[in-house]
Structure formats: structure tokens, C-alpha cells
């Protein structure tokens, strides 16, 4: 387990700190307040395409600065600069002042105070730091291991073509302001994505599996070139599902019409992120684009879900739903405004009880910031999710096994996996990778083709009535908002059961 004690100092701190401080002194001659964020990422990466082409990139470096200038009367503007050189930063501030002059006063604008202002250092030191230890052998080993695993999955007349994308990156950031705040964070993040395409003649099927977590790639593949056991199991399982999908079927119209329940595996919970997370981001609420929270912050829909629904955004939870400060693909110790990340309870007992906030939205709603203000490499800081997870309270509704959960399900479908989702104001859509039919409380073994699961935000949680298995922030992904991407997860218990309702729908490809 990683921890944040003795947090490391980012490399080049001795040069970056004075440059940011000089830029902020310059900004202070022009505006009452300014803050700066410098993000720098060192990344090593391997791509293996379906063509077999393998690309190993042991060293890519990127970075950018965001400077926020806050003038009189709540006028404010953000400027992104390509590097942290003082001349670049001064030029960016000058350009920002031109834009600031055009801004009307905004008396409601303000920034909530940054808690714990005196603490400067956060994060965990990388192990086998790829900046010092050549990551190439591990990246190549990953590709070889995926190739071998795919080859083992071939059957008569069926090829399994793998694709791999994996990286490890050391993320460093500095946050400083004209009030004397100075904070840094160092994090290492590892990510592995494998796509298995099963090909039989003209017929193709595919599955995709992802792993992502705080820490490096060594948690997935050892120095002996072997996958960690749980990674090997999951990859082999998804490879075999791709082959089985060549003989899968869609659900019939009668089956769809007669469905009594949907059971969502933890890999198919993207609707928690898309449909329920985004509409509780305070900037979306304020703009009027949330279907479930009015711009004033009051719930438009109450209750939003059944009494067993509880949703939390923050660091990843353990199996019982309790937050672990240093786990989860979407986890950080401080956000990109210097606010320490804390868990935000969004829905409890089926009712909306909180929102996710940046410093700006926290000020507007008169609450404490939650550490949800993030930027993509120097872009404007906006409200972003981290790990958004269904964390129910214990009770009869939460059982141990899928078998128990399926009791009483007359006709259901267990849905696994997603290749992505999208959100609109009213609802969301996510693909499903495959499913299994349930009849009379038992899995039938009939595998169902990829489909599309849609949910209307205002009502889809009302029919959630049961859970099975431990909580896991399993769904590793990249959330797009505006033009920015951010690493996130969504998750919940291993299985989540919903009764059929007009709020959710499953359809299949034509």
C-alpha cells in the first residue's frame, strides 16, 4: 500500500518555485489575486496495434502552466502557457490582462479558501522511477505476455488478435498563489488496456479490459515477465469471452419485453459516472444543464433513487465502501487548485445530499471545496469527478453472491463491460460488451451480444433494489468534459440489480 508520508519534492523544484513566485509577483502588480498551476508529466508507454506493430516510447515529457488572474469586481481570466519560463509566464500574464479588461464585473465570483494552507508537499515517491530506471524491458515484457496470452486463446478456425496500450507516468504539479500558498504533488499512475479481437472468417468479436491504479506497471507485470495472477485471470477470461461472442445472439423482442431485471456487473456501471455524476458537478448545476439539481442547488428530483442508493465521489473505496486515501485511478491528494481531496457524499438514502465543487463553485454555493477542481495539463480548472462509486449501507439488500442476488429474477440479463458512454442533459448511453441471460433465478449460460444500455437520469436509480459482492472502483476510464480529459473510475458492488422500468432500456445493434 502506498502512502503520502514523507511526500517527495518534484524534480526541478528549485527552479520552478522561483519562476512561479516571480510570475505571481508580476501578476500581483496588476491584479489583487492570482494563482498558478504547473503540471508536468513524464510518461513511458507501449502500443501494440492489431497489425502487430509495436511501439515503445520510454520517455515522453509534457507540461503546461495555468495562471488565473482575478481583478477587481470579480473579473477573472485564465491563461495557459506552454512552459514555466519566466518570460513565457510574463507574456501570458500580459495577454491575460488584455482579456481581463474586456470582462464585466461579476460580484458573485470568489474563491473558497484553500484548507491546510501551510502544508506544502503531497504524493508518493515512484518505485523504479522510469526517469532513472529504463522502463523498456517491462514494456516489452508486457507486449510479449499479451501476445502469448492471445495465442493461447486461439481455437480451430479462430484467431485472437490482441491490441495493447499501457503506460506509466510520473505526474508532478505545483500550485501557488499571491497569498503565499505553495503546494506540490508527485504521483505515479499505471494503466493497461488490452483489446482481444476474435476473428473467424468474416466474423469478428471483441472485448476490452482495463487496469489502472496509483503506482507503476510493476503491479501488473513482474520483472519475470509474468502477469500478476489476478491480471492474468481477468485477461484470459476476457480473451475467452471474445471467442465465445462469435457465437452469441441478441435478445429477442419477446425477451426484451418480458425483462423483469437488469443486473449490472461492476464493469458496466458507467451510468453512475455519466448519468448521475455529471449532473451533480456544481458547474453543470450552475449553468442550468443538470436535469436533477436546479441552478440554486436544490434537487429537482427527490428522491432520486431508491432508499438503498448511496453514491460517493473521492478516493477509491475498500470492499466495504470506506475511502482509501491513496487508491484509485482517479485519485489525487490535492486537486489542481491545491485543495486536499476529500470524499463527497452525493446521494444518500436515495436523496441528493451534496455536490462536487471547485474553489469557485464552493464560494458560490457557500460550502467548503471538495477537491474536485482539475485541469488537463494547463487548461482551465473545472469541476471533475475522481472515483465515483455506489457505496451502499449494509443491509439485507446487499448479499454476498450473484446466486443470492438472482433469486426471484424471473427473466433478467447480467450485463458486463462497456466501451464507453456519453451523457446528455436528460440521460446517458453506454455500450455493453456482453451479457448473460437469467431465467427463473439462474444464469442460463446463454451469452448475449454487445448492446446499448440507456438510462434516464431522473428515474433510473429508483428501481435499484439489491447488490452483491464487495465494492470496487473497477471502471477505469477517461472522462471528457469540454475539451478536457481526466482519468477517473466508476464502480460499486460486484453486481447491482435494477428492476425493469421505463427509465432504463437495453437495445441491440442492427
Amino acid at each position: 500500500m502506498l502512502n503520502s508520508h514523507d511526500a517527495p519534492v518534484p524534480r526541478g523544484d528549485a527552479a520552478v518555485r522561483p519562476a512561479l513566485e516571480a510570475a505571481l509577483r508580476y501578476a500581483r502588480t496588476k491584479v489583487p489575486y492570482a494563482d498558478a498551476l504547473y503540471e508536468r508529466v513524464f510518461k513511458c508507454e507501449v502500443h501494440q496495434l492489431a497489425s502487430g506493430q509495436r511501439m515503445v516510447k520510454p520517455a515522453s515529457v509534457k507540461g503546461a502552466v495555468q495562471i488565473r488572474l482575478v481583478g477587481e469586481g470579480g473579473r477573472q481570466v485564465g491563461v495557459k502557457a506552454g512552459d514555466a519560463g519566466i518570460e513565457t509566464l510574463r507574456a501570458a500574464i500580459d495577454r491575460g490582462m488584455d482579456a481581463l479588461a474586456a470582462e464585466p464585473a461579476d460580484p458573485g465570483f470568489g474563491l473558497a479558501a484553500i484548507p491546510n494552507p501551510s502544508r506544502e508537499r503531497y504524493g508518493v515517491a515512484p518505485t523504479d522511477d522510469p526517469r532513472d530506471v529504463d522502463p523498456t524491458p517491462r514494456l516489452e515484457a508486457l507486449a510479449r505476455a499479451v501476445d502469448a496470452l492471445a495465442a493461447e486463446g486461439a481455437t480451430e478456425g479462430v484467431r485472437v488478435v490482441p491490441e495493447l496500450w499501457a503506460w506509466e507516468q510520473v505526474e508532478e504539479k505545483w500550485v501557488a498563489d499571491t497569498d503565499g500558498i505553495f503546494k506540490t504533488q508527485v504521483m505515479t499512475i499505471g494503466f493497461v488496456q488490452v483489446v482481444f479481437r476474435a476473428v473467424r472468417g468474416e466474423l469478428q468479436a471483441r472485448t476490452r479490459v482495463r487496469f489502472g491504479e496509483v503506482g507503476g506497471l510493476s503491479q501488473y507485470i513482474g520483472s519475470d515477465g509474468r502477469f500478476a495472477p489476478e491480471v492474468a485471470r481477468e485477461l484470459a477470461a476476457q480473451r475467452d469471452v471474445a471467442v465465445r461472442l462469435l457465437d452469441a445472439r441478441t435478445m429477442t423482442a419477446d425477451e426484451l419485453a418480458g425483462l423483469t431485471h437488469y443486473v449490472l456487473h461492476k464493469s458496466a456501471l458507467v451510468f453512475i459516472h455519466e448519468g448521475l455524476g455529471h449532473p451533480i458537478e456544481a458547474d453543470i448545476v450552475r449553468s442550468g444543464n443538470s436535469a436533477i439539481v436546479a441552478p440554486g442547488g436544490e434537487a429537482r428530483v427527490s428522491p432520486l433513487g431508491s432508499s438503498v442508493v448511496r453514491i460517493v465521489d473521492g478516493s477509491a473505496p475498500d470492499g466495504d465502501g470506506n475511502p482509501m486515501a491513496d487508491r484509485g485511478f482517479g485519485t489525487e491528494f490535492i486537486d489542481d487548485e491545491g485543495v486536499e481531496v476529500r470524499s463527497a457524499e452525493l446521494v444518500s438514502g436515495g436523496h441528493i445530499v451534496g455536490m462536487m465543487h471547485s474553489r469557485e463553485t464552493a464560494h458560490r454555493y457557500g460550502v467548503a471545496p471538495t477537491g474536485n477542481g482539475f485541469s488537463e495539463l494547463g487548461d482551465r480548472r473545472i469541476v471533475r469527478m475522481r472515483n465515483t462509486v455506489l457505496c451502499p449501507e449494509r443491509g439485507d439488500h446487499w448479499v454476498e453472491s450473484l446466486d443470492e442476488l438472482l433469486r426471484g429474477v424471473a427473466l433478467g440479463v447480467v450485463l458486463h463491460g462497456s466501451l464507453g458512454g456519453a451523457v446528455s442533459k436528460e440521460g446517458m448511453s453506454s455500450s455493453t460488451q456482453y451479457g448473460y441471460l437469467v431465467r427463473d433465478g439462474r444464469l442460463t449460460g446463454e451469452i448475449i451480444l454487445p448492446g446499448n444500455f440507456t438510462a434516464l437520469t431522473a428515474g433510473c436509480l429508483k428501481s435499484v433494489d439489491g447488490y452483491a459482492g464487495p465494492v470496487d472502483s473497477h471502471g477505469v476510464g477517461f472522462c471528457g468534459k469540454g475539451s478536457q480529459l481526466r482519468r477517473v473510475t466508476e464502480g460499486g458492488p460486484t453486481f447491482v440489480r435494477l428492476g425493469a422500468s421505463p427509465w432504463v432500456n437495453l437495445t441491440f445493434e442492427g
Partner: protein
Amino acid sequence: MTSMNEAFASVRALAEAVRARVAGVTDDVEVRVERADQVSYSIEGRALIPELECDAWRVAMRARRGGRLAIAATTGSSVDDAAGALLRSLSAAQPDALEDFAALHETPPDGRGWDDAAGALIDRPAQVRSLAAMMAEAARSAAPNPDLVLEGGVKVGRTWRAMATARGATVLSGSTVGSAFLMVDGNEWESLAGTAAPTEQGVRALGRGLVGGLPPREVTVAEWLGGPKEVTVIIDPRLLESLLRALFLERVGLDRVVSGLSSAAVGDVVGAPIFSLFDDSGAAGSLAGAIVDDEGTLGQRKTVVERGVLRTLLADRRSAKVAWGGASTGNGFRLPLMAEDASEAPVRVGMGHLDVPEGNTPRLKLAPGRTVLLTDLLGVHSANKATGAFNNPVQGGVALEDGVPVARLKAGAWSATGNFHAMLRALSGVSAERLHTGTATLPWVAAPVRLS
């Protein structure tokens, strides 16, 4: 303010310095440098949010040594950082079929994608703000409902590029981008995009046209079609472009054919006889056109589909070498997926500016009786690239009665299912009007889709 000459000199200097730094230890090298500025104002409800980007540098590099390919990327203008990353990557170079990089020819800096007004507007952020405000105000003034929720924005940007390989000259190019986008109540939207700056007239017309053109009534599938049903729908050019890039590329990209993921071959019938498609990676005035693609091959116009028959597969240098032993079609692009930055992304086969010739039917008359015009689908990226099948919620569209818009499609209540490859073969109409989306010039088309 950066002058044009100064900007070109700076990107050239960085590209050539990196090339020189690695020349002694590589067989060949390719360096692509970008330097960009951008100003945008986002509309978020009643608020206008400024975002400025100054001097963003991106350096994408590849090198060959002993039949192996090395790849690296950096941001920033430091030669040390860029060359250091590339030198370090040599130890991780992988065997690769790519035998050489492009030999580049001396040309004057290319400005086919440059618009002076857009380039200048970046230094006048107040004017960009004013354009965003005008667009929002025009929309609100056309709305019967004062509580209209708007999101969108106006953006202008300029980029200078230098591309250098070990052989030949350094190719310089500059381009601008201007765009405006507006969405109403999280569903209906309209946009304009191109290399030119948005104009006052243009953004006002966009805002007014989007809101003023929406029928007040909204309908469900049951109300309009009596329930789930396959009908011939009219597809907006923006949706057509999304489907072509997301799904048709999977069929006609030579790298997919080489991988065995597509069985397409020249001569295949891939569309109805009324459908032809051109790809022009060198199109002037397009955001998808440039003097060279991302690996230095000259941009060029190809007939991809002629009256329904596949005439050309699209290739980058590697796939062309492997499959044909010949030349790329100028379709090698650094297409980022998910969290990749463009400079980090591998070169993949992509599409340039897409061009589908017009037909002879007014767009709203393409499908008679009760049908719908589909503007967009939610999550086209999640469609099945292997088969061309899609199954997505509808985001934006109108119900048509003999070509007359009579109602909006109720948000969240419609989904569309089909197979894009089958739809192309079954196209029943191509409109007389075409839309320039910024990256394509396309008509409205009519095709069968199942609505539910």
C-alpha cells in the same frame, strides 16, 4: 505579439536543431514541431468564460536506426528536452516495416489553411468575447422561453508547423481555426467551423437559426411513428461525417486491411450508385487539409468511392509499403485516442477532408411522409467498429411530415439502430444542398434506420 516570420523561424529552428542533434546516431529522423495560440469563450448558461492559450509547443519525433523505429514526444521549446527524449528512445526502438521517412521538398511556407482575420483575432480577445455574446443573445432573442439553457462557445486559434526529416528541406505551414458551437437545453445544437474567423453575421444567424427553427412541440417514437419502426430517415451532414470517420474508415483504411480486420478490396460495392466519396488530405480552407500529412506525404485528393464502388484504400507510409510496396495516399495522421495528446499518438491511417457530391433533391424532401431528420447520435465513438453496427440515443433532430418540420424529438426518448455499411449500400437519396463542416463538404442523405 508573434510575427509570422518569427513564428516560422522558431519552429524551423527547433525542428532542425533536434534533427542535427541526433543525426550522427540515427539512420533517419522525422521531427514535427507545432507552436499554437488560442482564444476561446465558453457559454455556460448566462456566463461567458474566457480561456487563453499562449505559446503551446508540441514536438513529435520518430527515428530509425538499424531497421528499428524509435518514437518520442515532448511539449515545450527546449531542444535539450526533445533531443534527449528521442535519444533515450533509441534504446527502445522496435523492428518496423517502415523503411524511411519522407523526402521533403523545398516550398514556401504553406498558408492554404491560414486566414489573416482569424490569425489577428487571437490578439483581440474582446472581439472573440463579443462574438460569443452576440451568438447567445441572438439565440435568446429568438426563444419563446426566457429560461433557455445555452452552452457552447466561440474559438479562434493559430498554429505554425515545421516538419523536417533527414532528407530534404524543412516544410513550413501555418493554419488558423475559427469555430462557434451552441447547444440548447442539452440537446439541439448547431455549429460552424473552418479556417476563417467567425463573423458577427455568422454567429448571429447560428444562434437565431438554431432556436428560431425549433418547432415548439416535441414527440416520442410512439406518438410519431406508432412505436419502434424502421424508416427512411434524413441524416445531417455532421452525423454522416461522424459515421464515416468512426465506422467507414475501419473498412477502407489499408492498415485495417493489412491487419486482417477489414476484408475490403478495390472493386467492392460499398455504397449505393448515388454515393461517391472523395478524400482530400490537401484541401485548401479545410481543417482536415494540409500541404503534407503527419509523416510528410503530400496532401492529395483521392476517389475513395465512385458510384458505390470502392476505388482506393487509404494508406499511410507503413501500410502502403507492406501492402503495395508503394506510396502512401497521404493519410498518415497522428490520431489521438482517449488520453493521448496528438503529438504522442502513433501515426494511424485517417481521413482528410471528405467530399460527397451533391444530388438533386432538396434536403427536406429526401424522405416523404412521416420521418425524422437526425442531427446527432450520443456516443458514436462506442459504435461497433468491427461490424459497422450502431445503436445509440438520438441527440437532436426533428420530426418531418412530407418535408415540413413539425416537432422536436423528445430528448432522451429516441434511439437509432442500424448498420452503417448496410445503410450506405441502401442510400435512397442525396440532397442538392451541401454543408461545409470545417473538415468535410457533405450533403444530407436518406437511409433506412430503426427508431425506437
